Structure formats: C-alpha cells, structure tokens
C-alpha cells in the first residue's frame, strides 16, 4: 500500500512539475528530438526488427495469424481455422512470445500467451516483429521474440476514410471502416471492424466437416491526440474487442464448446519535453480481459468465466545527453486483479525499474545496454539485462551481437488454478545469445541471424501424486538455429517485382531427454512474389512447414500457397481496388495442430476504397 502511494505521489508530482515547467520555459527547439520514443525502434541495438507492410496487412486483414504466418519467422499453432492460435518464436513455447499494444504487454495474465485469433486485425497502423529476447523492455514472456501492434498519432493535416469489404468461402465476411482526421493540433482516428464466418469447411480425406467452427468478432477503436504545443502533447488510445467462437471438432472428437473473449484496452499518454534534450512520457493504462467458456453452446446459462483487470502507470524519462548518448529510465507500477470460476480473487502488484542506454562509441560501433528489476511481493524476480552491439563495417554490411537474460513469470492460472495451482512456482529464466549479419544494397537486403537460447525452470503442467494436473518448474531446454531473410525489389520499365523470403532452422530440445520439443518445426520457410504493372498487382505466397511431433504423434510437413490479384478501377469514383484471392491453391491437406485439418482450396473477393 505504501509503495502504491509512493508511486502515485511520484506520478502526480511529475505531472504537476510538467505543468509548471511548461509555463516556465517558453522557447524550445523542436528539431532535435521527437515527442515520441519508440522502444522497438530506438532501443533495439543488435536486434533484428522487421515491419509488416500495410499492403500485406490489408490482404489478409481478417487474420493476424495469417499475416504473420506468411510473412514472418513466427510459427503458429492454430487449432483449426480461426480457433485459438498461439505463436512460437525460435522454438520457444506459446507463452514465450510477448505481444505489445502501443508499448503495453498484453499477454494474457491467466494463460501467459496471446491468442492471435482473438486480436483485432485491422486496428493498427504499424505491426513490427522483433526477434530475440526483450524482457528488459517488454516484460514477462519476451523470450523468443515480440510482436508490436502500434497506432500512430501524428499531427499532419489529413482527412482519410477507408472502407474494406471482403467476402469469401464458408460465408466468411470482413467489413471495416477507418476514419482519420488530423490537424497540427489534433488527431482523431476511429476504426470499426467486423469479421464473421460459418467456417464449415470440409475436412479433406474424410467425410467430416468443420462442425461447430463458426466465429464472429467485432472491434472498435478510438485514438485521439492533442498537441498543446511543440513540446507537449496528449494521446489517448482505446480499443475494444469482442469475439464469439465455437470451438471446432477434431478428427477424433466432436465438440459443442463455445468461447467468448472480451477485451478493453485504454492508454493515456502525456509526452512532455523537459528541455531540448529531455523528454518525459507519462502513461496510464487500464486493461480488461475476460473469457467465458461454454461447455455446451446450446445451453449458455451455464459457463465458466475468468477476468483480469490491470492498471498500469509508467514514467518514462529520456535524456539525449549528447548526440552520441541516449539515456532512458522507466518506473512502472502495475496492479492486476484476477477473478474466475476456477480460483478466488487474486491480486498481483509489480513495481518495475528499467534503465537503458544507447551509445555511439565510434563512428562504426554503437551499443545498447538495458537493465531491469521487478519487485513482486513474495516472489523473487530475477535481475534482467540486455546488451546489444552493432558494428557498421560500411554502408552495406552491419554485424550485430546481443545477449540478454529474459524471464516469464507464472500466470494466475499457474499459481492459483483450482485444483492444481502451485503458488511456489518460480519464474522461467532464459539466457540468450545472438549474432546477426545484415547486408543492405540499394534494392535488396539480406539478413542472416544465428541464435542460442537456454531456458531453465520451465513451467510444465503434469499430473501429481493424486492424478491432478499441477504446474512445476521442471525442464531445461536449449534452442538454437538460424534465420535467413532476403528481400529484393526490381523493375523492367513499369513492371515492378518484389521478392521476400524467410527461412528458419530451429533446434529446440529438452536437455534431459535430448529430444526435439513438441510442435517445433526444424525447417520453415515462406516466400512472397509481388508483381505490379500500373493498376494491377498479382501476388503469390507460399509456406513450407516441416513435420512436427506432438506427444506420440507426428504432424506431417506441408506446403500451402495462396495467390491473389488486385485491380484499381480508375474509372470509378474514389478508384476502389478490387481483388480476388485463392487460398490454398493446390488444395493441400494439412494440419497445424494434431487432427485439426485446415481448409482446402477456398476463395475470397476483396474491395478497398479510400475517400
């Protein structure tokens, strides 16, 4: 309690000082620093970061899983199309990829993971994937890598409307509308989206179909910014998402289960320039997550439910000491209250301190160092660090190295689930080392990363003496491998070509048994070819996923490909773009998770209008 008061006092003190200092200093030069510090972009020295372009997002707008599956190194364990979809990065488990929404870690406090099919796909301006451990900056679970979903609030005068309408096989619909209006003082952005699908596709090689697989979801976003002056602004991010899914059957069992998600995310941010070199960012966030599980979707009076309420307050202080040195300190205070059918009301309070440094040591050599320590009652949280180094040999070749210690703290389910929860659990700890090579030419770039991760104290649920599944810190694992990506753009006159390929090789083994971990493909590759001529764009994307083992079974390898064409109709008002996409053109029979077949060939019509 005292700690809590101290933090809030501190928080308000900062606000007040801001207000006064704002009045005091009149002239501030704006040119040196921006009013926003992006942790991903500014504090990723030695790490590989890649942006997912808007075009790719729009093409697959109904599914964030699909966007990332075909365009990043992340492997998804999707339990049938549109069902629970958990990520795996560099062979780590579902809870070891952190997802950040506008800088806030949004991994489920109950499950530890993010279900990528329970995230709205059309709410963000910017989707970034950062490979490697990032617990220092991004918190619990940032072990394999992080996915950043960001909204941009800027103050460049514009008015934009965007409408997207898609319709496809299995009665799959997507409708979304975005409105953006900004002046040099204000910014407002409103987004609405709706997805629904009967999703009753036939299981190839079987007389079953995906019964009980329908889903629908709805999202609403409001992002608002107000610029008081060139040295102070306020930003508000709000996102609401509701999903209703039936849970698909498998080849071996029918299902009449159903699942509802509801999330609310609110973030208020105040950025303030203390001086020409100092920037202070104060954040307040409230996040609400709720799931409801129905045993029988025909009897919705009976269900089990759980929710978490999180409040966060954060002070982020940046100092550009010189052109070469940037310093960042963060104090964060987080309180989570969880309540559910399976456990009593529980509370967790975390106080976090982070210190980061970026230093351009020589012209060619720069490094970043970050440190973090969390304080949690009755829980020993490890001291975390991250060190990254970049050496620019010349304008084309950059060598980078990083090492870090990362963690995942036990979830509320791990600690308190009745029956089974284990309050004595410790955090999972992971050490990571990575070596990266980047070659950058005018129209092409090549990247080659090797990584090594050693994780100890892995939390695993196992039956105890009474046969009740209970989590314990048990395993030690070792992951290593490489990631290669290559991008190339070229043209013959007006014919533009773009080619992207990502390949990863991953070994992830249990150090006791020396066996490859379940659901980790050794080889995985995806590529994209884009061809553009005037108003026509044609694209082809393909994914190869190696076989994976799951318990005593093996899920076979597969190759799946999509093709699409988009055409911008210039003769019509507002020049809408219409498209046609064929998913799984080779009608491949494949499964992402055991005995949950994915759909065969299917079709989609898309329209996209800006006005």
């Amino acid at each position: 309690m005292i700690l809590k008061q101290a933090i809030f006092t501190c928080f308000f003190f900062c606000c007040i000082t801001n207000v006064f200092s704002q009045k005091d200093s009149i002239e501030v030069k704006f040119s040196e620093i921006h009013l926003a510090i992006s942790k991903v972009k500014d504090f990723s020295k030695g790490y590989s970061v890649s942006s997912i372009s808007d075009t790719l997002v729009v093409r697959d707008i109904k599914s964030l899983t699909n966007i990332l599956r075909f365009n990043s190194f992340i492997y998804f364990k999707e339990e049938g199309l549109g069902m629970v979809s958990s990520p795996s990065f560099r062979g780590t488990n579902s809870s070891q990829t952190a997802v950040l929404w506008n800088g806030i870690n949004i991994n489920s406090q109950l499950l530890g993971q993010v279900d990528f099919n329970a995230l709205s796909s059309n709410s963000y301006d910017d989707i970034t994937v950062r490979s490697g451990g990032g617990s220092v900056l991004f918190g619990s679970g940032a072990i394999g890598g992080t996915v950043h979903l960001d909204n941009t609030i800027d103050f460049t005068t514009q008015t934009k409307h965007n409408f997207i309408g898609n319709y496809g096989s299995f009665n799959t619909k997507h409708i979304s509308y975005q409105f953006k209006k900004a002046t040099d003082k204000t910014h407002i952005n409103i987004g609405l989206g709706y997805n629904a699908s009967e999703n009753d596709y036939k299981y190839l090689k079987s007389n079953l179909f995906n019964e009980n697989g329908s889903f629908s979801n709805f999202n609403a976003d409001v992002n608002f910014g107000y610029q008081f002056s060139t040295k102070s602004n306020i930003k508000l991010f709000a996102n609401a998402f509701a999903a209703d899914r039936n849970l698909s059957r498998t080849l071996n069992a029918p299902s009449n289960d159903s699942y509802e998600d509801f999330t609310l995310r609110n973030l208020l941010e105040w950025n303030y320039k203390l001086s020409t070199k100092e920037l202070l960012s104060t954040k307040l966030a409230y996040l609400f997550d709720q799931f409801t599980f129905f045993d029988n979707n025909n009897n919705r009076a009976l269900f089990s439910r759980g929710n978490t309420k999180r409040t966060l307050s954060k002070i982020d202080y940046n100092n550009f000491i010189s052109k070469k040195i940037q310093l960042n300190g963060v104090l964060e205070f987080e309180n989570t209250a969880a309540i559910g059918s399976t456990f009593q009301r529980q509370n967790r309070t975390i106080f976090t301190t982070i210190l980061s440094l970026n230093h351009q040591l020589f012209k060619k050599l720069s490094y970043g160092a970050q440190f973090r320590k969390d304080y949690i009652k009755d829980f020993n949280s490890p001291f975390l660090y991250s060190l990254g180094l970049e050496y620019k040999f010349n304008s084309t070749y950059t060598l980078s190295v990083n090492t870090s210690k990362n963690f995942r703290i036990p979830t509320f389910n791990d600690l308190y689930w009745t029956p089974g929860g284990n309050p004595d659990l410790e955090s999972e700890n992971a050490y990571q080392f990575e070596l990266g090579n980047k070659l950058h030419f005018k129209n092409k770039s090549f990247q080659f990363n090797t990584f090594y991760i050693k994780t100890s104290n892995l939390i695993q649920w196992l039956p105890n003496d009474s046969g009740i599944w209970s989590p314990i810190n048990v395993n030690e694992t070792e992951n290593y491998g490489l990631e290669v990506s290559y991008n190339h753009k070229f043209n013959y006159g007006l014919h533009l070509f773009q080619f992207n390929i990502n390949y990863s090789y991953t070994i992830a083994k249990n150090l006791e048994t020396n066996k490859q971990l379940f659901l980790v493909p050794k080889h995985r590759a995806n590529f994209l070819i884009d061809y553009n001529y005037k108003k026509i764009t044609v694209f082809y994307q393909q994914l190869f996923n190696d076989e994976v083992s799951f318990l005593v079974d093996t899920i076979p390898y597969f190759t799946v490909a999509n093709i699409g064409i988009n055409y911008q109709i210039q003769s019509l008002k507002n020049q809408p773009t219409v498209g046609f996409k064929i998913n799984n053109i080779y009608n491949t029979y494949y499964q992402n998770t055991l005995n949950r077949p994915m759909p065969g060939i299917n079709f989609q019509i898309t329209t996209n209008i800006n006005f």
Partner: protein
Amino acid sequence: MNIRKVVVLSALIGVLFSCNNTNEPELALGDYENGILVTNEGAFSGGTGTVNFISNDFSVQVEKVFNKVNGENIGTILQSAGFNGDNIFLIANVGNKISVANRFTMEKSTEITADLSNPRYIAFANGKGYVTNWGDGTDVEDDYVAVINLTTNLVESKIPVIEGPEQIIANGNTLYISHKGGFGSGNSVTVINAVNNSVITNLQVGDIPDEMAIDNSGNVLVSCEGKAETPWNPTEVLGSLVKINTTTNEVISTINYASGFHPGAMTIDNQSIYFGSSAGVYKMSENATEIPSSTIIATIASAVSVKDDKIYVTNASDFSNNGTLTVFDGATNTQLQEFTVGLIPGKIYFN
C-alpha cells in the same frame, strides 16, 4: 533402446511363429485371444485412445490393435472398456463414442454415439448395457446412466443420477455406481435395480469414491481416494475402504486409509485386495481391518490388475511419451517383464 529392440524383435518372432502354426487343431477365436489388453487414453487435444495387446506368454505384442484392424480411430480419451459375451465396448470419453467390436478379432461391428454425453464406464445387467455419463462439465444436474439395448445398440433410456457417476459394476441385476464427482468431488454410491431401471438408494461413502470390486463374501468394496493436502486443499481428507452389504445395500464397514495414502487403483483377486498409488502396490487380505503401511512393489501404479498370480501395473511415465505395462510375479513380487504400451495407459483387461 536395447529393450525396445528386443521387444520389437520378439514381437516379430511372435508374429512369424503364429503364422507358422496356422494348422494347429484348436481353432483360435481371433488374433487377440489369450492375452492382455491395455487401454491407453491417448492425447486429450485431438488424439485418440489405443489398445495394446500382449499375449499371455508375452511372445506377441501389438499396439493400436483396434485402429489397425479397422482402419479407424477409437476417439479421444479411451476412458475404459467393458466386455459382454464376445464383444468389447470401448468408451471414448471426449470422443463421445462407444465402439463395439469382437473382443478376440477386434473387428468393429457398430458404434454408439447418440444420447451419450461424456461417457465413462460400462457394466452389463439384465441383458442390457449401463453407461455412466457426466453430461456437461459445468452442469451438475444432467448426469445419467444410459441404458443400452444390446440388440439395437441404441440408448433406449436414461436414469438420472447425481453429479459425477464414475465406475459401475453389476452384482446380478443390481448396479453400483461410484460418484467420484465429475469436475467436482463426490462422496456417494448409487444403487440401481436393473430390472426396472430405478434408483434403489444413494449411500454416502468417503470422498472421491472410484474403483469398486466384489469380495468373496459378496460385498461391494469401494475405494475412496480422499483428498491429499495441496495448496488448493489445505486440509487433507483421509481416503477409506467402504464395504457395502449387497443384500441390505447398507454400508457395513469403513476402514480409513493412513494420512498421505490416496490410491487411485484398487482390485481384488483370490481374497486379496491390491491398491495402486504413485508409491507402489499394496496388498492386504479381504478380512484385514487395517490398510498395510508398506508396499509389496515399489513402482508407480496408475492401474493394477491381478490374474493367475501375476500382478499387472501401468505407469504413464511423463504423460507425453508412451507409458509402460509391467508384470510382476505375484508370489515373489519380482518383475517378470516390462512392455511399452501407448500414451497414458489407463486400464488392464484380460482376454
């Protein structure tokens, strides 16, 4: 590794051997006669249950018997099997299906899917099959015993019972059902008259009653696991062995288990009671009034069955790889043989 090779080799030899002996005078009822059947639950998420066969002389062992013979799966979580005449009834709990097959050839004759909801165990009485059903996990009032017409293999009626009916055994035309409690915890035994399918009574026993057996005096023994001391259950509830008189259908004795003893398996053979727990196998006389404090075999015993002076024990090992069946000599309690079976072996049956 070597053991596995030896096992595979001996299985291979066994197959060849049995092929060479097709001219034997005695006509075999099927490939899976004279042996042990182990049911394996299989993976909860998308998996299927399987059955392992091991011949009585240990020379032949076959995995995934049903799946191989029929080219199809049993379904998710093979909870248990029941036998009636030449038929085996394989109950897939999550799969919500009962596969009916010939117990010796494993050839499937039919399946029952309608009117089942989380089926658990089956017993036979008065010419009918009786299957315990949990219903929906969150619904405490939809549990029932499905009555199966063995001619049509359809559920012909349902007998509503209280939450969480687990094991079911028949004593003549009387059925005894232990209410382990489903997703909650139970503490009673329901007695049903199979002649008119009515509930005779519901008897209170210890917490978490599970396995049942009929002793030499014709009493029904119910092993109640009790509740171990855990973070979510700070106060231990002792387990107990409850004896029910089958004439009066009343509890005639209760023997409490020692603190820390919560066996998940119990069986009777030749006037001895055997318990299986994570500590091992315990043995006591039917007439003893105290539970033994030490094991006769110290190995994890998820299931225990005894036949012809041999003790059979399953172990699910790490629950993510195949488990084992271990056979011990009942006189010396020494290990005779160990076999790799399927994922999460459940129960042991004799064919």
